[in-house]
């Protein structure tokens, strides 16, 4: 029987305290955080506290560690948060922290698996996300799995000494493209 937590390349699982050191390493790496909201250095203590606080996935915060199916190696994380039960709408955040797994289809597979979980198990109607306007690689992934560009929050981000636009994208129930075309 196929698992709802598994895609073709990755598996979602709950975060564990042992994950903290890798997350600490990734989220202090400017190459990883360039397209994320993080801007201050992270302590090991705060990373451990974060992992602790999100280690029981539930409707209030459906957070997952992402690991490879091939060797169960931790490569990133994905979270469905800010869920409004009346509107059945969640915000999605994703990061593939292990740079050696960039460009291998792992992000796409993670998106599909997490969104499918959101619709099939959490009964969501809408999943939305924000992506920085210059992050074309991520935007391409989101569009590939079915996300639609809805708008642009002009100059909503200030980082690296300049303002940047932030794009708003969303995926409605029934729009997820699960076909695994390259």
């Amino acid at each position, binding site marked *: 029987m196929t698992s709802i937590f598994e895609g073709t390349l990755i598996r979602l699982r709950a975060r564990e305290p042992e994950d903290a050191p890798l997350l600490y390493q990734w989220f202090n790496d400017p190459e990883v955080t360039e397209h994320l909201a993080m801007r201050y250095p992270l302590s090991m203590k705060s990373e451990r506290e974060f992992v602790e606080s999100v280690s029981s996935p539930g*409707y209030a915060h459906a957070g997952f560690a992402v690991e490879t199916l091939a060797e169960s190696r931790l490569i990133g994380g994905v979270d469905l948060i800010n*869920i409004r*039960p*009346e*509107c*059945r709408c969640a915000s999605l955040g994703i990061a593939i922290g292990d740079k050696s797994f960039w460009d291998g289809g792992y992000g796409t597979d993670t998106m599909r698996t997490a969104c499918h979980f959101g619709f099939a*198990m*959490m*009964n969501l109607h809408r999943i939305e996300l924000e992506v920085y306007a210059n992050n074309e690689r991520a935007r391409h992934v989101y569009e590939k799995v079915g996300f639609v560009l809805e708008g642009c929050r002009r100059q909503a981000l200030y980082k690296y000494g300049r303002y940047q636009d932030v794009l708003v994208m969303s995926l409605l129930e029934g729009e997820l493209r699960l076909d695994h075309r390259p």
Partner: protein
Amino acid sequence: MAPGPFEGELIRLRAHEPEDVDRAFTWLNDPEVRQFLGRQYPFSRKDVTERLLPAPSFASALFAIVRKEDGLLIGDCGLFGASPENRGASLGIQIGDKTCWEGGYGTDAMRVVCRFGFETMNLHRIDLHVLAWNERAIHVYEKVGFHREAVCRDAMFRFGKYYDILVMGLLRGELR
């Protein structure tokens, strides 16, 4: 403007205020009212306050039922334990003011609170538990669209004996 989500024909729902506690305290300890409730123990004023005053939310949406003609508090109703994944919640209702029994107030309040559940909370299913001998209540629930789903045998023990509890359910689109 169309009637708001809290308006029925005879009643209106609102959040509770501290001034409501005394009146609710009185009927929640009145044996004639309590015979229909699933509680063995008396309510303290603190119990009543803690039950009525939290702000209604998805997790626990309790409303005061007031008579439209004069704003008199006559009971309460609510949707509890809503599961966002299953989009189901359990309903509870009581008309505590005995002079308002048989006047259509309960039916009206049922319709308003169920409509609120579907249209404002986006629920898919509402269920309730009722003592199986409480035919007057069951009649009201069936009138607004609830279906008899299951009898839980001997599910409640009070006054020295067991009573059956009937589970009833209403799906989105079935409200009359």
